[in-house]
């Protein structure tokens, strides 16, 4: 079959099994949009801003494990997409972002809506391509999907000049089944010698600790990983990105670790003698001061990216490979070893952890007359039966959700961990709801974050998506305010939000339902009522305590054992 470039792109997406393309049209993309118009298989989701389009594709990808696809025009279309691309890059999310480009002869001439998209996106993509010949289009797209979804996943940008998509220039097309990339061959299987060493070390542990991250979720290894941890009986902590990789309601789960992790998770990190790090990257928000990090521990690190190993923390037993594969191999090796850990030592260790747990580090003032954000998240958890997809924006509400919504399943907690992108939650929720039409999708946000992509309420209206938006409205950029209180003697420089919109009316003006909740006793009822409205997007504006802070906390320069805890009167 002979097709023009625009039709090749769309036909390729069909052949690749892509269901949704999230995008926004513009001059350089018009040939492509015309090709989209002339077919029905690939559904185009019109966002209201390119950042929203990429975040929606990202939410789709995070909740399904399939690559998200976005399509934007040249120039501002591409630059608007950059925040979304960088967000996906930091969290290793597979995306293919097609950026239209001005026609080849115009490249470099400062043409209308021209920007060097390949240059601008280079530091925040796994790889990018500029298609210079329509004959290369299909094979380039094939490579783009392959790179995005294999190894350590990530976003790939394909920049396509307008003349390449010209419908008048038709060439033969078939889906490129075979292609080779001599320079890209990710390691899947862990080194057997390293796996044996790891098992030996695991079995010798007296105070073991498992620290797992987003890699477990990304490699769809939660089932194997959970079985492996239960078999060992070790305490398990998750990073912000790893939540749901191990069931939060399991007694072996000691909560999230790091800056706003639990006391027990962080103390166990500090005191452990063997640390098994799986699909986590020793991020600064997790490790605290590196000089004080796990001072007594031998560390095993399983990761698909060799560059993650010994990047921040020196590793004793590195294993490069796909988590699912490596965990299966570790389990097999463990079975073959036919040995158990020192049960007495393990019991003593659990007793110690039990004492730390007893401090109830997440406690807050439950008798307050103001709505506490933690209380809203607790009730959200109850009302949704712990089984919702929950997206979030960035800040205090994100931490409260991570602490109080107990995720038992992977791919349910959708947030921007690495880049910390405010504005992520609402568009991501759109992508999640499209992928899971019958599921409950909640977006926990703040009045500051939600305004960064508020325009996507219009997209949700057009698509009739019954999202539930839980806005924890404290009239501050809460996390900024908290840091200013702690570290800048309460000089609240530009962290107060004056002149807020009436979110109820705002939601209504977009055709949604808006509710304002001002008293703690109304929280549960409002949530129940909202979640019972199966066909409507409900924007719940919870007026919360302005002074609430996220505890416990590891301040800058402190170690895991130096947490600041809440003092209750």
């Amino acid at each position, binding site marked *: 079959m002979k097709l023009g470039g625009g039709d090749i792109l769309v036909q390729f997406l069909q052949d690749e099994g892509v269901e949704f393309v999230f995008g926004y049209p513009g001059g350089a993309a018009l040939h492509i949009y015309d090709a989209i118009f002339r077919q029905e298989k690939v559904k185009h989701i019109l966002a209201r801003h390119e950042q929203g389009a990429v975040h929606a594709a990202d939410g789709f990808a995070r909740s399904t494990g399939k690559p998200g696809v976005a399509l934007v025009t040249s120039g501002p279309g591409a630059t608007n997409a950059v925040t979304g691309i960088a967000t996906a890059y930091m969290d290793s999310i597979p995306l293919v972002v097609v950026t239209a480009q001005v026609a080849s002869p115009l490249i470099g001439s400062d043409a209308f809506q021209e920007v060097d998209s390949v240059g601008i996106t*280079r530091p925040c993509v*796994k*790889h990018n391509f*500029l298609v210079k010949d329509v004959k290369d289009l299909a094979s380039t797209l094939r490579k783009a999907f392959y790179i995005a979804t294999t190894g350590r996943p990530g976003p790939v940008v394909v920049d396509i000049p307008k003349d390449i998509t010209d419908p008048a220039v038709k060439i033969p097309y078939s889906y490129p089944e075979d292609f080779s990339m001599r*320079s890209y061959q990710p390691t899947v299987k862990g080194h057997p010698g390293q796996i044996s060493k790891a098992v030996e070390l695991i079995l010798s542990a007296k105070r073991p600790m498992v620290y797992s991250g987003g890699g477990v979720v990304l490699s769809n290894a939660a089932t194997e990983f959970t079985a492996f941890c239960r078999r060992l009986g070790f305490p398990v902590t998750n990073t912000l990105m790893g939540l749901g990789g191990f069931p939060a309601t399991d007694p072996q789960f000691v909560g999230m670790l790091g800056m706003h992790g639990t006391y027990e998770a962080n103390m166990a990190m500090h005191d452990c003698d063997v640390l098994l790090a799986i699909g986590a990257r020793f991020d600064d928000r997790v490790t605290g001061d590196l000089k004080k990090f796990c001072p007594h521990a031998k560390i095993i690190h399983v990761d698909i*990216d060799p560059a993650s190993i*010994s990047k921040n923390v020196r590793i004793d037993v590195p294993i490069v490979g796909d988590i699912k594969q490596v965990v299966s191999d570790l389990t097999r090796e463990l079975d073959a070893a036919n040995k158990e850990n020192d049960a007495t030592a393990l019991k003593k260790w659990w007793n110690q952890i039990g004492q730390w747990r007893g401090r109830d580090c997440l406690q807050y003032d439950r008798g307050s007359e103001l709505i506490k954000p933690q209380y809203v998240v607790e009730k959200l958890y109850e009302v949704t039966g712990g089984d919702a997809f929950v997206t979030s924006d960035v800040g205090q509400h994100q931490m409260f959700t991570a602490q109080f919504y107990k995720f038992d399943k992977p791919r349910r907690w959708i947030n921007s961990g690495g880049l910390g992108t405010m504005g992520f939650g609402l568009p991501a929720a759109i992508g999640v709801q499209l992928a899971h039409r019958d599921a409950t999708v909640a977006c926990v946000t703040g009045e500051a974050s939600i305004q960064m992509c508020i325009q996507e309420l219009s997209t949700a209206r057009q698509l009739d998506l019954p999202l539930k938006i839980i806005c924890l409205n404290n009239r501050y950029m809460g996390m900024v305010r908290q840091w200013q209180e702690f570290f800048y003697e309460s000089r609240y420089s530009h962290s107060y939000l004056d002149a807020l919109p009436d979110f109820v009316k705002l939601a209504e003006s977009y055709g949604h339902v808006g509710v304002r909740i001002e008293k703690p006793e109304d929280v549960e009822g409002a949530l129940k009522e909202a979640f019972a409205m199966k066909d409507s997007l409900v924007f719940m504006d919870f007026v919360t305590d302005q002074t609430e802070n996220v505890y416990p906390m590891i301040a800058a320069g402190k170690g895991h054992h130096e947490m600041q805890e809440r003092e209750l009167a």
Partner: protein
Amino acid sequence: MRHIISLLMENEAGALSRVAGLFSARGYNIESLTVAPTEDSSLSRMTLVTRGSDNVIEQIKKQLNKLIDIVKLADISEGVHIERELMMVKVQAANAEQREELKRMADIFNGTVLDVTDKTYVIELTGSGDKLDAFLQTIDQSSILETVRSGATGIARGGKSLRV
């Protein structure tokens, strides 16, 4: 420690900027960088000289390997190797005494005079960076009009070779 890293990469537009961008984005230093196509026209070979602690060098190598366009990488300074740099120096050679002295120095350093005018010489030298530095320090500083250096290139000694 100073390291010489040799790379074979896809001979594609943008490959160089990926390497350069990686170094600036991650704050690694580049002492010199040379790049040219190889006998296989689909490949370019780059020689990169950098400095850093063992940890930093390990990260540099891993991050380079992670770039999709990089086909192969070798730290040739880890083994016995040959390092060469090309330099051309334009010097003032206006009188007989200057001309004689510069010619003699060029001979001592195995250099060649490539261009002669009534007032100037262009002297070509190859060798390690140290040797080139030594030449520049030895000749009369005020006679130097211009220098251009290629940056280091290198190759492993013996049977080891970097190829696809």
